[in-house]
């Protein structure tokens, strides 16, 4: 079982992709191509069931630890950042549920892409008749969907069972939350894609990617809600792209954005997604012009 898991991890991305290309690209059905890539991204992660269960356990343990520190904090300062205690606890459990979906710790596809740049395998990706950025975005969306279901649902349910959470009863709010999560994943992807491309210049992308993921961890509000950040730091943090990953989806779920406010929140996410994806394209074309395949 676990052996199989490993070989699948290595093989599936490339195998599935090329098979899809043969059958699909000829028809010019590009949407289907990227759909297949996304499905591959999803299925690839479903292989690791034990790892998923282990991750859920760890998220839940962290959720409990953080929840108690927030209880102590909100006991001292009720209404800190405009949250009451149950909203603060909701925030804790939403953040544990979203951690993997928006890939808070970095890694995932980015590590793979960096490794392909470092080894020179990127040359193969570049002569595929598919767009590099869209290819990886599709795969990452598939992964995100799996992590949302597989890693998100149980911690949130655990939190709702053992703590007093402020979850909405209106299905419309849940739908609005799903859209905010989707946009958050796209922004997260765009950031990590940009970072991964620095490997064209640095060869070992681990340094930059760890710095960026640390900045992300802090400015996404994973460690403390951005609402609770004091003064100017809070203003800056809420304007940075990382606030799209967790703070906005969590606030949408708690019904803190509605009407035009909700449209404003989506607009903010879309704006950052457009800017960062665009920057990724520019950097990609600059990188491709200078690419010298190593060991080739």
């Amino acid at each position, binding site marked *: 079982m676990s052996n199989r898991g490993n070989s699948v991890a290595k093989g599936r991305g490339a195998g599935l992709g090329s098979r899809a290309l043969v059958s699909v690209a000829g028809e010019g059905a590009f949407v289907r191509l990227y759909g297949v890539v996304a499905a591959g991204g999803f299925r690839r992660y479903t292989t690791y*069931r*034990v790892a998923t269960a*282990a991750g859920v356990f*760890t998220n839940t343990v962290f959720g409990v*630890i953080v929840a108690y520190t927030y209880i102590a904090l909100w006991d001292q300062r009720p209404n800190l950042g405009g949250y009451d205690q149950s909203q603060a606890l909701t925030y804790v459990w939403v953040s544990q549920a979203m951690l993997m979906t928006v890939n808070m710790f970095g890694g995932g596809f980015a590590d793979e892409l960096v490794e392909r740049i470092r080894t020179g395998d990127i040359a193969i990706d570049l002569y595929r008749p598919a767009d590099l950025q869209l290819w990886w975005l599709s795969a990452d969306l598939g992964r995100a969907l799996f992590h949302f279901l597989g890693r998100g649902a149980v911690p949130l349910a655990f939190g709702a069972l053992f703590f007093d959470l402020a979850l909405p009863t209106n299905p419309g709010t849940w739908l609005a939350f799903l859209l905010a999560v989707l946009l958050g994943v796209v922004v997260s992807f765009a950031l990590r894609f940009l970072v991964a491309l620095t490997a064209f210049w*640095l060869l070992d992308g681990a340094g930059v990617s760890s710095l960026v993921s*640390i900045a992300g961890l802090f400015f996404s509000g994973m460690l403390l809600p951005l609402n609770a950040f*004091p003064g100017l730091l809070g203003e800056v943090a809420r304007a940075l792209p990382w606030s799209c990953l967790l703070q906005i989806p969590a606030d949408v779920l708690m019904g803190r954005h509605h009407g035009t406010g909700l449209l404003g929140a989506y607009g903010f996410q879309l704006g950052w997604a457009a800017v960062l994806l665009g920057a990724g394209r520019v950097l990609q074309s600059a990188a491709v012009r200078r690419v010298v395949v190593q060991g080739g």
Partner: protein
Amino acid sequence: MPDAPEAVGAAGVAGATDAMDATGVVGVAGAAGVTERLPAPGMWATYTMIAGMWIRSTLAYRASFVMMLVGNFLVTAFDFVVIALMFSQVRSLGGYSFAEVAFLYGTSTTAFGLANALLGSIDKLGARVRDGTLDTLLVRPAPVLAQVAADRFGLQRLGRLLQGGLVLGGSLLALHVHWTVLKVLLVPVMLLSGTAIFCAVFVAGAAFQFWAQDAAEVQSAFTYGGQTLLQYPPTVFAKDMVRGVTYIFPLAFVNWLPALYILGRPYPLGLPSWLAFTPPLVAALCLTLAGLAWRVGVRAYRSTGS
């Protein structure tokens, strides 16, 4: 690699594996019967050699290394920034002042940082079992535990240790504690015992991965989770959690119990204050149990054949 004794080749893979097993766990060199076999390098020699190799390799990409070191420093520094942000809004947390929480943070992070720097790579064991590269380590005439622990030795992990040490130093300056000789001596004892307890957690977690290879992340709940838990005062948490980390999974001995004695704070759960001096014993017990678990794990290991 060390000068591989000829005899290993003759004895065959199975024999070598047994020998490795024995040396890996108990540190006894070689199987008794085979006299012509050269003594295998010890635990520490193996560890320093492999770690040194990885340090040289890390330094080959210098710009990246500096960024990883800074990153490692910052990632834990942000943990502390969060505590500082909390204290920008409140004056105490669970009845503890900023300096007191910083003391808990500093001791927890330093002990964990040291253990993580020494043994952090060990949580890759599950991946090694899965892809079959553990077999390569088993046939080498050197202790397996040292090989696994030193593999991909991350020099950048010193960032966390440095950061924890700085916070600890700062908190010692800021604390208003009536220092006695006993309390001063207790600080290094606490840090070393804490490191040993966390090392035991790492080794036990790795042993667990012999059976549950994909479940490596469970270990993080106890290592990183434990470190996070101990950064906050025990008064913050539910009594059952404090009971759990005192009686079942003895993380409370890493810093809570000795630190509360130093800070002159009441003990949770009505525990007696002489427990402040037991961490070395608890650490020895934990290391013994973890060593046994590792031994059982290596014995039970079956190659995936890939």
